[in-house]
């Protein structure tokens, strides 16, 4: 038999580690959406004395690479300090899994982002954010790199769908190079709003489409 994934990926897919939810977690994050076909939720508990991840769990709505990456990053991150855990890369996760297909990169990178976001969420909730940077066009663009273009399986920025970004007095305006009646317009709008709204100095988000 010939499967599209390595033995390690298949093993983590069939028997994923650290699956589930932590009640009242110290930090949590949800990345992705059904629109892009994959979602990952990451829950963490932190030991404040050592600043390490004492517990970590994940949930996944997604394909095999998404599930396997969720499993492996929880293994890699457990017991690490927050700073160490934040530095875990997709490459490290992929290597630990014996390699992932390139075309599946976006499905698996969500888990890495979920881990980082859960740690950020913990830091924000515990007043550990060192400096509050003002939101700029560059900050917005960076966040838009986490919004998938469902047609291409790559993010909006890389597939040149972001026509314009404006940031003015806490109001962010994003212009997307798609017609308003496009199949994915509503889903993309929702995802952009979800990613930009939590920024500390953003008051409103407007997503516009090209006529």
């Amino acid at each position, binding site marked *: *038999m010939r*499967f*599209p*994934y390595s033995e390690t990926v*298949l093993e983590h*897919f*069939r028997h*994923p580690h650290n*699956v589930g*939810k932590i009640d009242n977690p110290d930090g949590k994050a*949800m990345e992705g*959406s*059904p*629109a*892009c*076909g*994959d*979602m*990952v*939720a990451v829950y963490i508990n932190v030991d404040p004395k050592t600043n390490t991840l004492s517990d970590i769990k994940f*949930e*996944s*709505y*997604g*394909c*095999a690479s*998404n*599930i396997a990456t969720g499993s492996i990053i929880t293994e890699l991150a457990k017991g690490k300090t927050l700073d160490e855990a934040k530095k875990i890369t997709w490459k490290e996760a992929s290597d630990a899994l014996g390699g992932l297909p390139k*075309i*599946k990169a976006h*499905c698996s990178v969500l888990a890495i982002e979920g881990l980082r976001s859960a740690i950020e969420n913990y830091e924000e909730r515990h007043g550990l954010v060192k400096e509050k940077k003002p939101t700029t066009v560059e900050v917005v663009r960076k966040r838009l790199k986490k919004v998938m273009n*469902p*047609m*291409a*399986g790559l993010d909006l920025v890389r597939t040149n769908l972001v026509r314009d970004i404006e940031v003015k007095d806490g109001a962010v305006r994003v212009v997307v190079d798609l017609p308003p009646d496009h*199949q994915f317009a509503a*889903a993309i709008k929702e995802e952009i709003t979800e990613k930009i709204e939590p920024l500390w100095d953003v008051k409103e988000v407007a997503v516009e489409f090209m006529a």
Partner: protein
Amino acid sequence: MLDRRQVYLDNSAVTRLDERVLEAMKPYFFDKYAVATSEFAYSQGIEAREILDGAREALAAALGAASGELIFTSGSTESSNIALKGVALALGNSKGKHIIVSKIEDFPVLHSARALEKQGFRVTYLDVDSDGFVNLDKLRDSITNETILVSIQHANQEIGTIQDIASIGRICGEKGTLFHTDATHTFTRVPLDVRRIPVDLITVSAHTIHGPKGIGALYVRQGTRIAKWVDGGFQEFDLRAGLENIPGAVGFAKAVELVTPEETKRLQSMRDRIIDRILAEIPDTTLNGHRWKRLPQNANISFHFIEGESITLHLDMHGFAVSTGSACFSRSLEGSHVIFGIGGDHERAHGSIRFTFGRYNTMEDVDAVVQTLAEVVPELRNISPLGKRNKE
């Protein structure tokens, strides 16, 4: 990996060749390999011509057509390309540049329409309802004096819904426009007789009925204006040049001969059993397509809160081959345009699984795959944040 037994449930993608088809084809590779010649050439060529004409006649008869109305092609993709582009080339400059297709056509029709759009044709993509049916009033209203072709499939490749092509054909006839239907998945399984149903062009193929790959046909009603598709010699009534695939044609005719109403009934009972069992035994499942007006060999079900590639991989590891409308499964990473077409959301598209049955499947296969699904689906739902979110 877990289970050695292989159960193939993707018979709408391709079917296993029937040995009897291969036996029928064999002589035309070895003893009788001559090219079909004119009736004034050597005897081997004349015999080849007669064999080809015999296969053509048998296939045409299966559609209630005359043998002069059927051209052989390399398969359904080519047949649909000829239908759309051949009509466009023949009528685009005289009658008009408007074509109508449904939104849920298979890619050969859909992408031919898109290609013609780039050449300056106007294409109407008709919506379908939640079962996948084209609205006949909307179709009637969409046809203008400029409309040269309506192309609406006989049954859908993914969700199996069978269109009312008799009514569609009548509307096209009243309005004076040509009607093409893609019958790739219905041919020999769902009745289609051109003496009773007003269709001008029909796409059929051998690969879905245990025939060989690489052979299909296009029915072209007598008198239909269509441009030459491949230039070269004068084969296929001067529409498609090229050396005739005589073993393929013979195999195609044999495959048609082997399909029986009893077999189709057997496939339908497998279809009904898998639909009934999954909907009854696995919660949060939705049937895609009409419950009865659907291909006898097709079941398509969405498993909510989970993603199709994960389901297919689990099934694969248990020995079952099925397909899904999930973006993750496809090369394009796009969710099924058919499920979106019937108003489904992303989650329904990504969680849709198509089971298609064929000659070599049994009722035990149905029960085995349902059993495996009953184990695998809860496992995946246990991992999914969606399932729990909806339970809370």
